[in-house]
């Protein structure tokens, strides 16, 4: 299957602190790849490299078949047309209404008439169940609502490649479930390839095709969800057994 993302031997440091060490993994087209790992293990840092927001100093990163670090600015911009990004804390522009935020990629990356953009915005807000927030400002929304607006913005252009950094954190179980369904729909109906960073085990079991397990800046495990569940790598076992002891989701039977 075609690889939409391939990372090879990626190292990263902030100041003098090593954050990523020899990270290798890939994500396949039309699949949901979940990156998981403890807080501070470097997940957001990886995403920022994939998006070309941090320069690759050592190693290689291919996105949609192109080597990110050597891409001229012009092509990088083209690339951004193909990607939707959900940032960890939403990153909505606070000086604009929800509707203006969601409209932004459409206004700047397409030539759609205003009226049509408004319709798309309302539709996308409908997909995340937030039409009522249309004219509000981000500061008037709750944390969970912000996340959903940010997701609506990320999928405004129906990008073939979607990055989500912990979209589920802080959502109630029902919203979380509908978020998962939306993500599955995006994959199944639109064929979008999704890179998802999340800690929510229930989400992982519901949506993941492939799992990349990060531990202290290194990839401890990479492979299909089924294999992850039966893996005997200690950290991975421990992570999934936490849920087992909670008892509401026996992991064994939930591989997709």
């Amino acid at each position, binding site marked *: 299957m075609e690889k939409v993302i391939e990372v090879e031997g990626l190292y990263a440091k902030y100041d003098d602190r090593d954050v990523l060490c020899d990270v290798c993994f890939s994500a396949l087209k039309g699949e949901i790849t979940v990156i998981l790992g403890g807080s501070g293990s470097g997940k957001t840092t990886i995403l*920022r490299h994939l*998006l070309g*927001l941090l320069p690759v100093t050592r190693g290689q990163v291919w996105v949609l078949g192109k080597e990110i670090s050597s891409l001229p600015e012009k092509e990088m*911009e083209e690339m*951004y*047309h193909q*990607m939707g*990004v959900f*940032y*960890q*804390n*939403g*990153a*909505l*522009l*606070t*000086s*604009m*209404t929800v509707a*203006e935020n969601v409209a*932004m*990629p*459409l*206004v*700047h*990356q*397409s*030539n*759609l*008439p205003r*009226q*049509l953009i408004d*319709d*798309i915005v*309302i*539709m*996308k807000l*409908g*997909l995340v169940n937030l*039409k009522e927030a*249309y*004219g*509000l*400002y981000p*500061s008037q929304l709750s944390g969970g609502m912000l996340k959903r607006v940010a997701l609506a913005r990320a*999928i405004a*252009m*129906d990008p073939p490649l979607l990055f989500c950094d912990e979209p589920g954190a802080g959502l109630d179980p029902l919203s979380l479930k509908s978020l998962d369904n939306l993500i599955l*729909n995006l994959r*199944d*109906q*639109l064929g979008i390839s999704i890179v998802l960073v999340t800690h929510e085990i229930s989400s992982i079991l519901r949506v993941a095709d492939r799992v990349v397990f990060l531990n202290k800046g290194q990839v401890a495990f990479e492979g299909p969800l089924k294999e992850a569940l039966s893996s005997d790598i200690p950290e991975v076992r421990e992570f999934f057994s936490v849920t087992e002891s909670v008892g509401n989701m026996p992991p064994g039977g939930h591989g997709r």
Partner: protein
Amino acid sequence: MNWESSPVQFWRISDNFRTGHQIHFMQSSGSTKTIKVLETGHTRCRLNDNTLFISGSLKVDDAGDFSRAALRALRTLKLPQLTVNLEELDDIDSAGVTALLYLQRKIADRIPRIEFEGANKNVKNKIELFGSDTHIEEKPAREFEITEAVGGSTYSFVTSYLYGFIVLAADVLYWAVADLFKTKTTREGDFVRQSVHIGVNAAFIIIIMSFAIGFVMAVQSSQYLREFGADIFIVDLIVIAVMSQMGPLIAGVLVAGRSGSSIAAEIATMRVTAEIDALKTMGLDPVRYVVVPKLYASLFTIPLLIILSNVAGITGGASAAYYSLDISPEIFISRMDAIMQNKDLVTAFIKSQVYAVIIVLTGSFYGFRVEKGAEGVGRVTTQSVVVSISLVILADSLMAVIFY
């Protein structure tokens, strides 16, 4: 049905959708039947009797041209029913679905019934996924204010930052010139909003400060002037001091403190919350999108603020002259006429432009430099205020030397 051999009304829209959409008309009407053919990018349509065939793909890059062109083509049509045949449509996305629904709504008064038929599974799924109602009642929303903080600290500027500063300056000035007459790169109404933010809110405090300083200056010097019997020279003193130095400087320093800090805080916050990243991945240049409108607004408002400041300062001085030296406003004004120079206005304008550039560049430079967290925002804001006030004063002295 061989539709190509029928008389055809032909619409063609250039593929290059980003650089404008020219619509060429080629018409050859003849006998009985007219078939309209429409091509936009990857989308092709033809209208045959009561059926609109759509083929190719209808995605975000084509949806805009499609909806414009289709509306044009269907503008004059009046039918009881229209069938939209999607058999040959390979692919669609949410923008495409919205375009179809939009079209449906726009022509509903002339063509009340519209049916979609023959969509393949893929297209059907997407229409179902995205085809929810796109209507909503709008609620008006309130505007928000940004709070700002001012602090004090000294800071060494020249060495390590110069390079970054020059790069930013080059970037900002380049885009400021390049975007002068473009609107799509910035947000609608941003210029007005920024001007209000920088100008209107600062006007009040500038008026009060300049008035007070003009007043005090006149009161204090009046004593000495009276001793020498040179009462009337109070006018010269005030007008020259205010017009050439105090007025512009007070406006510059206050705007540097007020707006310089708010620019730094705003940009730093945007960086810390990844809004700047989000702009980049939405294909927008943050410098161009965030900084340039602020520069335009400052270039426009600071001259006006300087005028206000001058007027307030002279008014303050004139009132003091009236109370302490009995110089009536009429005398004051006629004397003022004699000593005012056009040169003062020109230098004031040049100063205003220099201040604007300094304030915006310093604020955004420090804003972009923020490291992590809320604490970082506070720190760069403080640094930015100190540096931009110092630079404004330095520039003022420098220009005083140059212009005299």
